[in-house]
């Protein structure tokens, strides 16, 4: 693989995004709007917004990048550009890292807008710093991208790719501790949630909201998330075949 090809691929993906201002607008405005909505849903209980808001700052980039990547990758497959790229000197990993870098950048902008709004206008308070929260949001985005890339291999159409969102993301969202603490769920559900990547992504954010300094638990969570990213990318690479039947 080559850094030059990876970076050119990142630039190409960002250029595609730039030609689609509506998607950029949606990526930036929707999380901000939803956060505002939540702030006023919990108007009488600001403490709940502090708890849920910080989690949502991590969940939005995960969901958005999962969707964008799975559809983008599906397009590469169905329009024949993937097959063509694999007949050029480009390596599979150039393509995967190109995507990872492009969407991490997009996620950074998204996280900056959402976190800026949450802290500055919506009075979100966390014990840890806003920078750590933003950093975790980007890690979540890359996780969403990596999983989206992997599942796109199993979608034959954009309809299917979009349906993978509720299939893969909603269960994780329900079990990650966002709507109810995990230790108060049925025991078998807690066990399932123990092997879901988003559980650790959300747990890290909860740690930051409660502790001023990085805790050992947070670092463990981050390690698990990074591990999941690497595994998903490697499995994703295995689905990109130069030779097909």
């Amino acid at each position: 693989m080559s850094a030059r090809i990876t970076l050119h691929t990142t630039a190409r993906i960002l250029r595609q995004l730039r030609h689609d201002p509506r998607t950029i607008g949606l990526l930036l405005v929707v999380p901000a709007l939803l956060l505002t909505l939540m702030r006023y849903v919990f108007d009488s209980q600001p403490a709940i917004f502090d708890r849920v808001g910080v989690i949502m700052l991590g969940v939005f980039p995960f969901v958005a990048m999962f969707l964008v990547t799975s559809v983008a990758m599906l397009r590469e497959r169905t329009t024949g550009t993937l097959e063509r790229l694999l007949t050029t000197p480009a390596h599979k990993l150039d393509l995967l890292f190109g995507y990872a870098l492009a969407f991490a950048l997009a996620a950074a902008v998204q996280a900056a807008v959402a976190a800026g709004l949450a802290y500055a206008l919506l009075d979100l308070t966390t014990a840890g710093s806003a920078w750590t929260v933003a950093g975790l949001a980007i890690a979540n985005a890359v996780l969403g991208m990596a999983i989206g890339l992997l599942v796109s291999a199993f979608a034959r159409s954009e309809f299917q790719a979009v349906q993978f969102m509720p299939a893969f993301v909603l269960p994780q969202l329900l079990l990650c501790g966002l709507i109810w603490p995990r230790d108060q769920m049925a025991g078998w559900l807690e066990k399932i949630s123990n092997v879901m990547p988003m559980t650790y992504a959300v747990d890290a954010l909860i740690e930051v909201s409660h502790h001023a300094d990085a805790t050992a638990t947070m670092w463990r969570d981050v390690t698990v998330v990074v591990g999941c990213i690497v595994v998903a990318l490697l499995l994703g690479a295995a689905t990109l075949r130069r030779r097909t039947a």
Partner: protein
Amino acid sequence: MENAVVIDELVVTRGRRPVLHGLSCAVPPGSVTGLLGPSGSGKTTLMRCVVGVQKIRSGSVTVLGRPAGSPSLRHTVGYVTQAPSIYADLTVRENARYFASLYGVGPREADRAIADVGLRQAGDQLVTTLSGGQRARASLACALISRPGLLVLDEPTVGQDPVLRNDLWQQFHALAEAGTTLLVSSHVMDEAGRCDRLILIRDGRIVADDTPAAVRAATGTDDLDEAFLRLVLARENQEKVSP
């Protein structure tokens, strides 16, 4: 001179359906070889084998002295699929420059390739806004950038107006004179006459592998469409006699 592509006893099945039945042929270097046959005859599958993206059951495909699909061939083999495979949400120039970057080639080469396919005026247009013929040419431009030693073109002239088609064929021959080997598929027989050499296939089997002149002479007709028909009928009769 050694052949640019050598195909030996190639068998390909897709699903359970056999597509190519032990096919053997060769493509001479620095020439335009036409791969002709009706839709569904296995042209695209054969081309996919040459660029090394098709799983094969048995037999071998050797390209420029190496097994098809070898990493070193990725710099020297250009492939243009039948459906234009370029990014619809980028401009023609952005597409060409991206493909140029994959080969480590500068933007000037990308612009030259765009001009070569007659899209200089449309360089800043998004691919979605192009006509079908323009898209096909934009896709072709992306394959010309790296000045490949072997160009594999799947129906590159479909949907092009006659003047442009003529231009493209002149360009193919100019490229061949400069040393590039071209393998061009078509289902239109009137294009067969423009090739230096013909490989006629039907149902995954070779019907003829010769120069257009030799095919005409062997079948006793100047019309290549008619020649193809006579060859197919002759083969069928032969099969009836000796099954």
